[in-house]
């Protein structure tokens, strides 16, 4: 007869607290495979930790979001926010779905060109465009979104030396009734700075003002803020037409739509509180449709959604390294992915599930990453079943920002695989190696190992 299944002995104190109608439901439905690929096999083949992206989910998200807008408004264009996830494989999924590129640096701009995006379908945002970047973007007829007056003057001086008339928009910041109000990007609406910039552009005769852009915040939970932003942008556009005889071709409402992750400090889980894309689409398109444009003059609506389109298409798979008991009696589990890999754990209480079956007993624990740093905490408090070294975990909704904001710090960055629509697995980024990290380093002659270890 075989031996009985063993589980670490564990007792939990029962507290007779008042009942909580929101009660913490166990997060732990085990997830042993991602789109039919067993977690254990993926980790065995590609190493642990490992990011996994679902092409099917990305396409589903972008199509659904586009439908939300296109069923409400006649002219809609999505531009993929490169900073959210600029893996070429990911960008090209969005480009195949018809998205333009929205970039915020020369580095991202060149990535977009490398992905075959036509120059006139690249939107160039960002507060720190270099002169060579501006020249390249002008040459490619890209849409330049001017962030500040210094950039405007730089552009005007560039125009003295070229024969082209660059297509530009200004970035507008405004009070949309939310706190904190984002005012660091672009020109302010309320104090007329935006209008002043517009008049400067048009009176210069050297730039072609074709659009207006705003990006009112990130992980926005207020639908009404977008409604206010859209109304103010429309007011500005209509004023451009009536007072300066310069019709605005497009309104770019930026991004900032939230995914269903749960923000730290939130009382309820994100899935229960985050407005849907339909809610945002309804608010934005209604504001534009009611603003007073004639039917044939309705501007193109550009959206630069990022995280809402990709967060739930990304998973991080990892392994348990060790368990320990803290001084105050709490359980702590150390896993092989830290805040360096899972950057968004600074903002979210990520949903984390075991990748193997477990008993009904769970224990509250702290989940630490592998870094020798006190800040390396993935979850301060999470109910998970008894985990043993070598067990696997799945972190959900990690598709946005992690694969761009991750840090090479103490450990190297892991590999990334993409599961395509036919359930085939493709490695889209290899794990980093020591050679890769050291390649740009230069060691002075007197500090080489043979001189140092004499």
């Amino acid at each position: 007869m075989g031996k009985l299944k063993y589980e670490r002995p564990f007792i939990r104190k029962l507290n007779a607290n008042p009942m909580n109608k929101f009660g913490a439901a166990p997060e732990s439905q085990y997830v042993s495979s991602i789109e039919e690929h067993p977690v254990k096999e993926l980790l065995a083949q590609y190493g642990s930790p490992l990011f996994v992206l679902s092409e099917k989910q990305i396409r589903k998200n972008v199509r659904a979001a586009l439908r939300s807008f296109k069923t409400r408004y006649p002219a809609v264009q999505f531009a993929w926010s490169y900073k959210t996830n600029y893996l070429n494989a990911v960008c090209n999924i969005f480009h195949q779905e018809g998205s333009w590129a929205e970039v915020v640096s020369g580095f991202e701009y060149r990535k977009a060109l490398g992905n075959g995006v036509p120059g006139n379908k690249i939107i160039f945002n960002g507060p720190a465009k270099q002169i060579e970047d501006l020249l390249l973007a002008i040459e490619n007829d890209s849409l330049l979104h001017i962030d500040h007056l210094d950039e405007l003057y730089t552009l005007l001086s560039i125009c003295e030396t070229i024969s082209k008339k660059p297509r530009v928009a200004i970035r507008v910041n405004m009070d949309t009734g939310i706190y904190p109000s984002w005012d660091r990007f672009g020109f302010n609406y309320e104090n007329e700075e935006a209008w002043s910039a517009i008049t400067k552009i048009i009176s210069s005769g050297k730039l072609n003002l074709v659009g207006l852009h705003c990006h009112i915040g990130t992980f926005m939970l207020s639908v009404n803020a977008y409604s206010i932003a859209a109304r103010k942008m429309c007011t500005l556009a209509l004023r451009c037409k009536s007072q300066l005889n310069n019709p605005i071709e497009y309104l770019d409402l930026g991004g900032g739509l939230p995914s269903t992750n749960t923000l730290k400090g939130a009382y309820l889980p994100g899935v229960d509180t985050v407005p849907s894309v339909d809610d945002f689409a309804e608010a934005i398109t209604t504001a534009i449709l009611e603003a007073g444009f004639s039917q044939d003059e309705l501007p193109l609506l550009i959206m630069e959604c990022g995280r809402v389109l990709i967060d739930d298409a990304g998973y991080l798979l990892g392994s348990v390294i060790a368990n320990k008991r803290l001084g105050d009696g709490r359980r702590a589990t150390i896993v092989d992915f830290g805040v360096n890999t899972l950057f968004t754990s600074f903002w979210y209480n990520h949903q984390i599930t075991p990748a193997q079956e477990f008993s009904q007993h769970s224990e509250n624990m702290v989940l630490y990453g592998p870094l020798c740093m006190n800040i390396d905490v993935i979850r301060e408090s999470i109910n998970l079943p008894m985990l043993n070294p070598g067990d696997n975990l799945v972190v959900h909704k990690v598709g946005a920002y992690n694969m761009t904001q991750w840090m090479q710090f103490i450990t190297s960055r892991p590999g990334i695989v993409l599961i395509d629509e036919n359930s085939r697995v493709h490695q889209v980024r290899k794990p980093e190696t020591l050679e890769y990290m050291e390649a740009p380093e230069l060691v002075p002659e007197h500090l080489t190992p043979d001189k140092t270890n004499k």
Partner: protein
Amino acid sequence: MKIKKNIATSENGFIFNPATGDSFSGNAMATAILSAMKNNEPDEQIRKNILEKYDVTAEQLNRDWEDWTIQLREANLIEC
């Protein structure tokens, strides 16, 4: 390691300390060990029985036993 005499345990994992009023729930392994402790089985014998009966290595059990001891001490269930 001896469990306090007044600690009450049930077969389904409920543990009650009448001196403090604290109650606990334990998993199957904890229930089995507590039952053996209540029968005054020495630690070594309990561990030996677990190794014979359950699918666990001596190394893993050693590590878990350390943690088990801390849990019982934290819960104030063992004699000082």
